[in-house]
Each structure stands twice: as structure tokens, then as C-alpha cells.
């Protein structure tokens, strides 16, 4: 465990920067929170404003409940059919495009529960200038139109209108005809079979019919005065599906169920209230005034449907499509709540609207956000109207579109996401680039710094080149390392020059000594033969040679540089060298074993000789008496190997490692003339020849071998040199 910990060194710079960079992820987090907060604030402000407006409007009606009391019957036994006030003139052509209403919201559905079955009816009523208008959309899978030859009027698809006339009698009008010919309104008999007035059409009732893909659309008009003061009114659609039997398949009534009275109540908006409210309307808002039963008594303005025709290829839209999938995740991460898109709220919308109105009618002002569709969100504020008795007379509802807020929120969110993602990306890229560059610079510096000193600890270069101009800490590091190197270099130069300086400085006094001794021996005859004079001269010589050797070794590198290399036959050189060794060192035997062919290497011949001198000196010093010193030359594929082996004491492991270092001697202490320079000189020469030297104990432990490997010369022209190489 401890070992493992000791090896743990911490992350690389790149990893650290990446970790730090990930802190940037909190930027979108906070931005999103801010957007949410701002949205909440804006909505809250909007809600309060709307509530205040509602309150203001409600104040206008406070204590004026009489404005709402123009409805004749206020009991709940009738179903109200609300009538929309119409702004412009209406052409009775079976189409509702001139009504200026949002049909999807204003159509009331009758028939089956879902309103999508055969003979189901959707209807909207309108009022303008004393005329009651109706638009009816009918689903009818088989349309059967009037046959002029059939006298009975109940034998085709038709629209019937029931009402109570001013005189208190039941009024019945049936609109019969076909899309080709105009519809005719007939006042009908009690059985709805024949026209009441002998087939004369009712001129005041007009209607038109259009056939659609899945049914029929009727548009009719009749004067409100036809209805009695009660304004009891009902519409029914008669569906005939079999063109042959022409029997009535189904009748769909807008009329209430049988337990209630046979008519609906046409509820018109109170003109007085409307007049008041009309002047208060403003763009983007709808103001509704409800009576205590929640019936709309006045309405003004409309919430504009937002412009959905946004160019789908626009930049913003594409951005939105990028942002939308991110939003729920972002929302969940930042707020911890599940993200509710508008669509999910849509189903609750109707119920919420009722809740808002009910709350206001119970005396509690309320403002709530309502989602109408995915594109449309409104705030609905409701404020109660108090009656003169202190009760609730009704309520004012203001609906205002908050799409601008939603839109603002959405676009700021998009911006937040976009800016965050872009900046994150840029930051990450910048960090990666920076980390890579930093790591590269440090690596470079490390490489150069470690190259500045070779395996022997010698300085190769007095300064660094990379990063020297950099102004940052790496530059400082480089400069300080470089400074260290140059100081080290100065010191090294001093050390290197020391033998030379020493020789220079010692040679002069030595010369004084030497010349003085000479003069002494010539001037004082008694001294001439003195053994002291001789030993003094020997001493002078020895100091001289020591200093000389030191200087030579120190200058060797430099001297080698000026050496001229030529291609020489190492085999011949060694052969003659070993032969000469036997003459120069008669006390030893030398054995040479060569490959029997020329071995060419690019070398300076007498440097090789000098190298051999040092190796052989070493071998002679260490060899066991009467054992031969073996010199062997081997040739490998691209190198030659000179091995000088002698029997004698073996090397210690430490000696094996440091044998070729300068000033390292493994000789006994009493050997005064050696400074460990010999084998150092060998190494320098070998390395100058791009070779390699090592010392090793013989396998049988009987002695030591020094092996020098040098590269073979590359023969320039193969054809002329072939005969010499062929002998290999």
C-alpha cells in the first residue's frame, strides 16, 4: 500500500487543466437558474398587473348588479345558448369565414359525447343588429337532400329550429333543400311533416347549406324579434341516411334533455355592460364580464394567436430544435423538477378555467397561467364584482397572452445554451491546446536538459536553447537551468583547463629547478656526481611527466578533433603492434589471433596505437607472471572487436563500471605514476572512433578482458574494394 502510494505522483498537467475546465459547467447551470427566476418574476408581475386591471374593471361594476338582470329567466332549468356578438356583416352562404370568430373555441357540441359520430352537431350562435345568426357544422356520412317530387318535408337531411313566438305559441321552422338550390325555411306543422302555411316559405328565416367532406354546414339567420321575450330557442338536425325509404335515422337536438323544458335559452350579452367594457379593451387581452352564474355578459378584445408561420429553416428555429432536447435535462439538473412542456398542461386547461371563474365568483381574486395550446399560453386573472348588498354579482376575467414572456424566456434559454455550449467548447479547445502546448514545452525542456549531460556526467552544452525567450515560469525554469548549466560549464571549463594551467604554472618553476640543478652541477664540481643531484633531477622529471600526462589527457578530446582519419588495416596494425610488443616488453609473451584477412576501419593509426599502448600497459601490470597476454581481432557484420585478455586478478563489479572513468585507478595505492588516466584515454579514443569499450572478467574467472568495438569502414566503391572485402 505504501509502495503504491509512493509511486502515486498525481495527474499530468493536461488532466489537471481538464478537471479545472470542467468547473465551467456551472456557467450554464447558473444561467438557466437565472432564466427561470426571471421568467417567474415576469409572470408574477404580469399576473399582478392583470389582477389589478381586473380589479379596476370590477370596481366599475361594483354595486351595479342591475346591469346583469336583463335576462328574463334566471332559473337553471334552461340550458343557455350563448350568443357571440358579431362585428361585421354576415353573408348567408353556408360558410363561417366572415364571422371573425375562432370556431374551434366557440363551437358548442351536441349529440354524442365525443362529438365525432354521425349526425353530431356543432353550433355557434351570433347576434348582430337584431338578427340571430347560426352556424351549424354537422357530421353526416350519407347525405340525402330534398326531392322536389316528395311533398312531405321530413324526408331529407334538414335543420329544424324550435322557438316560442311572441304570442306564446310554439314556432317551428325547417330549413330544407340541397346545396345546389338555396335552402328554404318553412314554418312547419306540429308533426314537422308539412309546411304550415300551405307550402309558403317563411321569408324572414334565411339559410344556406354547404356540403363538406364529412358532412354538411348550415348557416342561417332569423330576426331576434321572432323569438319571444323569453328567447327560448332550439336547433335540431334531422339525419336521413337511406335515399330510398327516406326514413329519419336520427335527430340531434340542441334542446335539453326531456326533463327540462323543451327549449334552450338564448343568452345575449348585456349591451350596457358591453358598452362599458368595450372602451377598456386593449391589444392582446380579452376581457370577459360574467354574471353570478358564470354566464358571459360582455366580452371584448381577443388574445391574438401567435404568428406560427415562422420560417422553419430560420436560424432561430434550427437553434431551437437543438435546444429543445437539452431543455428537460437542464431543467431537471438545475431545478430538480421534471420539465413540463405546455402540451402536458393543455388537458388541464378547461378545468382550470372553470376553477378560476368559480374562485372569483366565490369572492376570491385569482390569477393563473393557462396553456391553451402549444403555441399559446395566457394568464387568466379573475376578480369578483360585489353587489350593492355585499354579495357577489359576477366577475371580471382578463385573459392576456404571455407568449412574449414565454418567447423571451425561450430565446434567452436558447441564448444561454448556445453561449454556454459555444464558450464551453471554445474553453475546452483552448484548454486542450494550452495543456498540450504546455506539456510539449515542458517535455522539450526536460529532454534538452537531460541531454545536456551525458552518461559520464560530462557537460555537453553550456546552455539550453528551447524556451529561453519564453516570458512565463517555464521560461524562468529554462533560464535558471540554463544558468545552472553555464555555471557548471564554467566550473567544468576551469577543471578541464586546470591540468593545462597547472602544467603552465608548474613548468616555469620546474625549469628554474632544472636549470639551477644544471648550473649547480657545472659550477660546483663536488656536486656533479652527487646522488642527491641525480635524485633531484629524477624528481623534476617525474613532476614534469605527471603534469604532462595530465595535460595530455585533458587535451585529448581537443587533439582528437584535429586528427585526420584514414582507412587502415587494423589486422595488419595489430599484427605488427603485437610483434613489436614482444620486443619492447621482453618479460611478457604476447599472442595475437587475427581473422587472417585485412580488417578495414576508419581510424587515426597512432591513436589506435596509443589506445593499444594503454590497454597493453594495463594488461602487463595486472597479468600473472608467465601467462601470455592474448590479443584477438574478430570481425562482425559491421564492426570489429579487439580483445585484450590477461590472466590475473579479476575486477570487482564496481571496478567494471567505473574502470574507464577519468582519474579512477583500481591499482594498489603504491603505484605512484598512475592516475587512472590510461583507460580513460582508451575510452576517449574509442568513442572518438564511434566505438565502444568495456572490461569484463573472463568466464572461467581466471582474468580480465578488455573489449573494444569499432565500426568497420564503409568501402566507397564496391568493385575496386571487392577483392579486399571478399577475403572476409
Amino acid at each position: 500500500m505504501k509502495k503504491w502510494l509512493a509511486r502515486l505522483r498525481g495527474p499530468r498537467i493536461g488532466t489537471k487543466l481538464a478537471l479545472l475546465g470542467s468547473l465551467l459547467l456551472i456557467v450554464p447551470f447558473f444561467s438557466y437558474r437565472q432564466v427561470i427566476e426571471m421568467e417567474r418574476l415576469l409572470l408574477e408581475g404580469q399576473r399582478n398587473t392583470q389582477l389589478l386591471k381586473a380589479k379596476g374593471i370590477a370596481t366599475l361594476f361594483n354595486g351595479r348588479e342591475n346591469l346583469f338582470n336583463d335576462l328574463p329567466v334566471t332559473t337553471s332549468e334552461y340550458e343557455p345558448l350563448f350568443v357571440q356578438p358579431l362585428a361585421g356583416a354576415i353573408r348567408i352562404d353556408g360558410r363561417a369565414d366572415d364571422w371573425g370568430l375562432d370556431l374551434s373555441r366557440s363551437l358548442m357540441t351536441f349529440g354524442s359525447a365525443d362529438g365525432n359520430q354521425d349526425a353530431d352537431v356543432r353550433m355557434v350562435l351570433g347576434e348582430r343588429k337584431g338578427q340571430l345568426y347560426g352556424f351549424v357544422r354537422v357530421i353526416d356520412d350519407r347525405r340525402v337532400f330534398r326531392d322536389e317530387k316528395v311533398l312531405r318535408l321530413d324526408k331529407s337531411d334538414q335543420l329544424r329550429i324550435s322557438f316560442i313566438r311572441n304570442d306564446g305559441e310554439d314556432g317551428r321552422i325547417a330549413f330544407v333543400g340541397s346545396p345546389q338550390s338555396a335552402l328554404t325555411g318553412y314554418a312547419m306543422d306540429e308533426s314537422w311533416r308539412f309546411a304550415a302555411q300551405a307550402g309558403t316559405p317563411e321569408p324572414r328565416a334565411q339559410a344556406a347549406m354547404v356540403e363538406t367532406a364529412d358532412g354538411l354546414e348550415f348557416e342561417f339567420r332569423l330576426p331576434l324579434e321572432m323569438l319571444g321575450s323569453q328567447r327560448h330557442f332550439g336547433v335540431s338536425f334531422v339525419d336521413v341516411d337511406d335515399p330510398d325509404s327516406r326514413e329519419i335515422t336520427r335527430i340531434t337536438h340542441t334542446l335539453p334533455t326531456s326533463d327540462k323544458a323543451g327549449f334552450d335559452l338564448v343568452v345575449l350579452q348585456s349591451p350596457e355592460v358591453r358598452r362599458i367594457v368595450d372602451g377598456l379593451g386593449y391589444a392582446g387581452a380579452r376581457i370577459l364580464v360574467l354574471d353570478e352564474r358564470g354566464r358571459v355578459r360582455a366580452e371584448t378584445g381577443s388574445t391574438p394567436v401567435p404568428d406560427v408561420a415562422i420560417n422553419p429553416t430560420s436560424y432561430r428555429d434550427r437553434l431551437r430544435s437543438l435546444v429543445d432536447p437539452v431543455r428537460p435535462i437542464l431543467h431537471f439538473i438545475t431545478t430538480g423538477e421534471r420539465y413540463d412542456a405546455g402540451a402536458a398542461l393543455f388537458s388541464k386547461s378547461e378545468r382550470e378555467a372553470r376553477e378560476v371563474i368559480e374562485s372569483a365568483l366565490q369572492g376570491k381574486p385569482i390569477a393563473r397561467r393557462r396553456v391553451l395550446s402549444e403555441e399559446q399560453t395566457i394568464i387568466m386573472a379573475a376578480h369578483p364584482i360585489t353587489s350593492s348588498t355585499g354579495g357577489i354579482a359576477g366577475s371580471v376575467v382578463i385573459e392576456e397572452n404571455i407568449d412574449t414572456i414565454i418567447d423571451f424566456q425561450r430565446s434567452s434559454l436558447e441564448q444561454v445554451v448556445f453561449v454556454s455550449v459555444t464558450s464551453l467548447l471554445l474553453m475546452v479547445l483552448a484548454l486542450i491546446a494550452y495543456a498540450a502546448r504546455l506539456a510539449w514545452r515542458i517535455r522539450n525542456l526536460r529532454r534538452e536538459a537531460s541531454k545536456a549531460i551525458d552518461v559520464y556526467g560530462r557537460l555537453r552544452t553550456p546552455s539550453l536553447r528551447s524556451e529561453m525567450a519564453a516570458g512565463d515560469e517555464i521560461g524562468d525554469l529554462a533560464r535558471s537551468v540554463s544558468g545552472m548549466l553555464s555555471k557548471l560549464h564554467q566550473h567544468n571549463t576551469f577543471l578541464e583547463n586546470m591540468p593545462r594551467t597547472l602544467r603552465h604554472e608548474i613548468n616555469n618553476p620546474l625549469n628554474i629547478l632544472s636549470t639551477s640543478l644544471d648550473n649547480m652541477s657545472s659550477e660546483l664540481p663536488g656536486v656533479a656526481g652527487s646522488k642527491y643531484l641525480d635524485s633531484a633531477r629524477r624528481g623534476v622529471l617525474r613532476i614534469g611527466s605527471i603534469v604532462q600526462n595530465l595535460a595530455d589527457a585533458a587535451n585529448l578530446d581537443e587533439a582528437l578533433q584535429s586528427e585526420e582519419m584514414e582507412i587502415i588495416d587494423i589486422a595488419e596494425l595489430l599484427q605488427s603492434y603485437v610483434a613489436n610488443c614482444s620486443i619492447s616488453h621482453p618479460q611478457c609473451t604476447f599472442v595475437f589471433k587475427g581473422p587472417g584477412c585485412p580488417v578495414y576501419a576508419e581510424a587515426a593509426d597512432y591513436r589506435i596505437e596509443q589506445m593499444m599502448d594503454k590497454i597493453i600497459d594495463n594488461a602487463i601490470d595486472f597479468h600473472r607472471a608467465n601467462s601470455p597476454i592474448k590479443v584477438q581481432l574478430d570481425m562482425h557484420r559491421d564492426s570489429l572487436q579487439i580483445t585484450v585478455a590477461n590472466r590475473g586478478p579479476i575486477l570487482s563489479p564496481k571496478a567494471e563500471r567505473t574502470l574507464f572513468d577519468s582519474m579512477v585507478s583500481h591499482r594498489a595505492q603504491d603505484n605512484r605514476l598512475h592516475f587512472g588516466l590510461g583507460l580513460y584515454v582508451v575510452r576517449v579514443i574509442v568513442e572518438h572512433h564511434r566505438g565502444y569499450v568495456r572490461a569484463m572478467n573472463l568466464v572461467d574467472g581466471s582474468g580480465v578482458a578488455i573489449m573494444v568495438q569499432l565500426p568497420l569502414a564503409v568501402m566507397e566503391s564496391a568493385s575496386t574494394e571487392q577483392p579486399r572485402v571478399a577475403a572476409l
Partner: protein
Amino acid sequence: MAKTIAIVEDDPDQRANYSDAITSKGYRVQAYKSREEALTGFDRDLPDLVILDIILGEEVDAGFQLCRDLLSRAPQLPVIFLTERINEIDKISGLRLGAWDYLPKPISLDYLAERISSLLRINQARQEQQGEHAANIRKVGDLTLDQDALLAAWKGKRIDLSGTEFRMLAKLVRNPGHAVNYETLMNATMQSLVTNNTINTHMRNIRKKIEKIDPEFAHIKSEYGFGYRWVE
């Protein structure tokens, strides 16, 4: 008349020792301790031979400058450099300036005296040679050595050798075909501290000087581990 030997050496002990030794050999000695002093002395009276140290006081190449001055006045004047600066470069510069020889310290005074007398003799021989006098000339193949005038020629062309080089070459060709060992060659240099390396350097210089005249020259052969041989 006794020959005049000028010694320029800044170290008083060495200067005194040289003076004593040379005076005792019967020469007249002018000893100077600086370049200016020497120049003033030479203006007065030009010596027959000059021994120069290279570094004089603070001036690191005062010896070279003096040599140049002297040789411009008297091109035949024998000049010996005697210095502790024995770097290759100094050697070359010294000889290129026209110095006759170049001796490293420490020096043996006997050798110095011998050299002085030999150089004076040689100088005289050279002057006398103007009259086509050939006394002690040795020919080995294409090599001609005038032992008295210390002049060597290869195929009739003069080889510009220093005194030391001439002596080594003479030693090498004394017995052509036979190897001459390092020790013999060392003795020929007449210097007290000589290594194999010094010999090798001298030999290489001799070879190069002859090769300058005759690129095909290959008569000096290394006897690795022993010495050199002159091959016919």
C-alpha cells in the same frame, strides 16, 4: 670574437640561470626581461642568436611579436623559442614565423648549449654554402640531408624542417630499412620530457611537409608499438 646570444625571459631566476650557463660556455649574453627592453637592445646591437620566451609579463604572445620583428630585420637570424606553452597551435605559429626551433620547458641546459652551438654552426654553414660548398651531405634515395646547414631536400626540393624534425629524420634514415624505436627518436629531439605522442606528432609533421612536395611520399612507416622505419 665571441658570439652574442640574446635571451628574452621575464622570470629573473630562469633568466639568470640561462645567462650563467651560456656565459660559462663562452658566449656573450644579453638578457632582457620584456619586449620593449629587448627591442631597445636589438636596436643597439643585433645578436647572433635569440632565445625567446613567448609569454612576457602580461603580454601573452610578446615572443611571437619579437620573432617577427627580428626576422624582418635579419631573416637569417636563428631564433629558438623556449616556453612552457607547448600547445600544438603555439608550435605551429612559432615555426611559421620562421623560428628555427621550439623547445618546451623544462629544458636541460646542456641540451640548450648544444643547440646553441649547433645552430650557430649551422647558420655559419648556411652562409658559407652560398658559395656552393657541400661538406657533410648525406643522400638516402631522393632525400638529401645537409647535416651542417641543417637543410633537407626531397627530390631536390627544400623541405622546411625545424631543428628537432631534422634531427629525427636524420636518425630515421641513418640505417634505412631498419626500425628505429621511440627511445632513439626521443633522444634525437634533445628534449628532457618526450612521450611517444610527441614523436608521433613530429613524425606526422615531417610526413606532411614532404607530402607537400611529393604527394606520393610513403617512405616513413609506423612500426606500431615500437617506432618508425624508413623504407626504400
